[in-house]
């Protein structure tokens, strides 16, 4: 009896790229829920616009590169990038901000390097950095969190859509309802005209540990991150090393002068530390490949992010820290190869 | 104005003297580079690049009076390696006609060989043995498939067969 020949091993692989990307998207749902609760539907619209832009740009580039379009789109990596960009931009921004961000991420940072698996820099962070540097005004329009006792309330669903499309406000809401600095921003400007942290923290915008709305979002993101760890999508080396290096430096400086520097808890639960550590820094393609390399990579991101936050010009330097460490990954890979079995 | 020219020429002369001393002290040897280039070539000694063997060709490349795509057995692979090392432009190999390769060996057909010994003189690696007027044969372990013995043979009795017959 005759048979056809195939190559070993004859086992069904246990996972695939679409499954991995789907798990990442599921893990972001708790954070999304908290985000909607505190900052309204702005982020849903951003995610929608960004995903459409991602699919369009991915299909366009795959067509140009003569690659199979359906396989490229269904692997979901473009959607993950789009959602991460939507998470890192303010909820109330004109529609063209997420579009430009996603286009530059997918086309510039991913497909020009060779498509999925070839991008040297993290596409979401390239998109965010380009947006931050080219549209500083729109990118600092953070809305205040929902807090009845403070009298801030959140724009309704339709009014957010109107704002996104025409950037015009419904008559009854006042302008300062949507132009609010993030707590990190207020800390930085406060310290600039050298008032101490305790005075700045009097402002109601600050919650118990971190900033009012953000700390809950960070806590829900941790649940998403633990889901990823449990599912084995990411391994623990990068998130743990990012968070430990952030904690070490912030605790060190906090001990030196608690009026000048923020507490570790605050750093941990504010800005994009948690979502950065679990979702952005762990992008496997632009991170180091060996475990030793991942530890150094994570440690670098944590310390650079802390340095930029405390002494740098930008309120939350996580994007620049990731890009800086991305450019040092090939050097890290060259020197952190694991010892081969049986070799000294 | 005069002081300016004086000062400038003074600085220039002192620097020139320093450089002359340094030049004498640091004499250099280029054959290390020639050896490195030679390791990149396939070293079949087939002389199809116009130079008698791979070392003269490597020396010519080192002194930059030879192009890097004259080696048909090496093919584009070798040219890419040379371009990579020397930082020169890659251009494909021009004449692949008589390309030799290490997977073929020469075979002398015993009926036709008249023992004229022309092929063994032409062989760059002495892989053909035989005495005048007597049968000649190719030692396949040493033969590199460089085809140099094919053209001198008056009775055309040499053919090239795959190495692992």
């Amino acid at each position: 009896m005759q048979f056809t020949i195939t190559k070993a091993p004859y086992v069904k692989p246990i996972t695939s790229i679409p499954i991995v990307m789907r798990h990442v998207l599921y893990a972001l749902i708790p954070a999304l829920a908290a985000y909607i609760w505190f900052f309204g539907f702005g982020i849903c619209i951003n995610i929608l616009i960004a995903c459409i832009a991602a699919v369009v740009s991915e299909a366009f580039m795959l067509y140009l590169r003569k690659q199979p379009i359906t396989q490229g789109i269904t692997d979901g990596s473009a959607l993950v990038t789009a959602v991460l960009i939507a998470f890192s931009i303010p909820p109330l921004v004109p529609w063209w901000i997420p579009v430009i961000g996603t286009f530059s991420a997918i086309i510039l940072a991913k497909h020009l390097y060779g498509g999925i698996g070839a991008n040297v820099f993290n596409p979401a962070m390239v998109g965010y950095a380009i947006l931050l540097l080219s549209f500083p005004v729109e990118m600092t329009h953070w809305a205040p969190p929902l807090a009845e006792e403070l009298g801030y309330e959140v724009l309704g669903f339709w009014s957010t859509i109107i704002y996104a499309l025409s950037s015009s406000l419904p008559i009854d809401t006042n302008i300062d309802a949507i132009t609010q600095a993030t707590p990190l921003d207020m800390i930085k400007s406060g310290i600039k005209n050298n008032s101490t942290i305790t005075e700045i923290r009097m402002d109601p915008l600050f919650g118990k540990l971190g900033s009012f709305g953000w700390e809950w979002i960070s806590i829900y993101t941790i649940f998403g991150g633990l889901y990823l760890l449990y599912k084995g999508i990411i391994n623990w080396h990068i998130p743990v090393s990012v968070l430990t290096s952030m904690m070490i430096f912030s605790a060190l400086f906090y001990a030196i002068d608690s009026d000048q520097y923020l507490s570790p808890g605050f750093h941990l639960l504010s800005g994009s530390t948690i979502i950065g550590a679990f979702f952005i820094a762990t992008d496997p393609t632009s991170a180091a490949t060996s475990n030793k390399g991942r530890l150094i990579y994570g440690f670098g991101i944590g310390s650079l992010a802390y340095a930029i936050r405390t002494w740098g010009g930008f309120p939350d330097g996580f994007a620049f820290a990731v890009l800086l460490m991305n450019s040092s990954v090939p050097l890290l890979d060259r020197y952190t190869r694991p010892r081969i079995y049986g070799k000294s | 104005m005069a002081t300016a020219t004086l000062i400038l020429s003074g600085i220039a002369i002192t620097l020139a003297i320093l450089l002359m001393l340094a030049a004498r002290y640091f004499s250099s040897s280029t054959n290390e580079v020639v050896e490195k280039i030679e390791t990149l070539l396939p070293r079949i000694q087939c002389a199809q690049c116009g130079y008698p063997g791979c070392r003269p060709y490597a020396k010519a490349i080192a002194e930059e009076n030879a192009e890097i795509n004259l080696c048909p057995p090496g093919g584009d692979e070798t040219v890419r390696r040379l371009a990579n090392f020397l930082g020169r432009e890659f251009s494909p190999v021009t004449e692949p006609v008589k390309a030799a390769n290490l997977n073929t060996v020469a075979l002398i057909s015993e009926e036709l060989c008249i023992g004229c010994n022309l092929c063994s003189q032409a062989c760059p690696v002495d892989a053909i043995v035989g005495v005048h007027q007597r049968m000649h044969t190719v030692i396949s372990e040493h033969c590199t498939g460089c085809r140099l013995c094919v053209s001198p043979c008056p009775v055309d009795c040499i053919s090239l067969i795959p190495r692992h017959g």
Partner: protein
Amino acid sequence: MTELVLIIFSAALVNNFVLVQFLGLCPFLGASKKFEGALGMGLATALVLTIASALSYLIEHLILAPFDVEYLRLISFILVIGASVQFTELLLRRASPILHQVLGIYIPLIASNCAVLGVALLNSNAARNLSEAIYYGAGAAIGFGIALILLSTLRERIEEEDVPGPFRGPAITLITAGIMSIAFFGFTGFPQI
């Protein structure tokens, strides 16, 4: 002492010569094809930078100032840099001919590297004393070296990916350098001298 460290820190990272001040771009893009070449180029430029910044300070304060021919500054700096580049080339050919062959044309090109001339001129403009000038030169060399080595390892990795046809080679290198300079933008705002 912390001041000198701050000089090196600000020259190397905050206003990095290549990625923030955009000086010395042609060797940055040309000599970064391979890691060994970039390492050699970084060392050669560091050597030239330290010699040039020291010599140019000495010439300016010992020869040009007393005869008050300050206007000769530019020409004498170029002379000094040319000589130190020639000296480095001889040294390199003696020390490792292979590296000299790999770098090839880019060693004499250091003479035309605007970072080297930049350091000399910036030193004399900011009227730094000798130790500050040398530290500034060293900081510039470290900054140039970091950028060069990072780009060379990046280019070696990009070489392995299938970059779309028209973007292969210099186009993708420029995009990578662009994104690297965006990354170095993160250092703006740091205390600097």
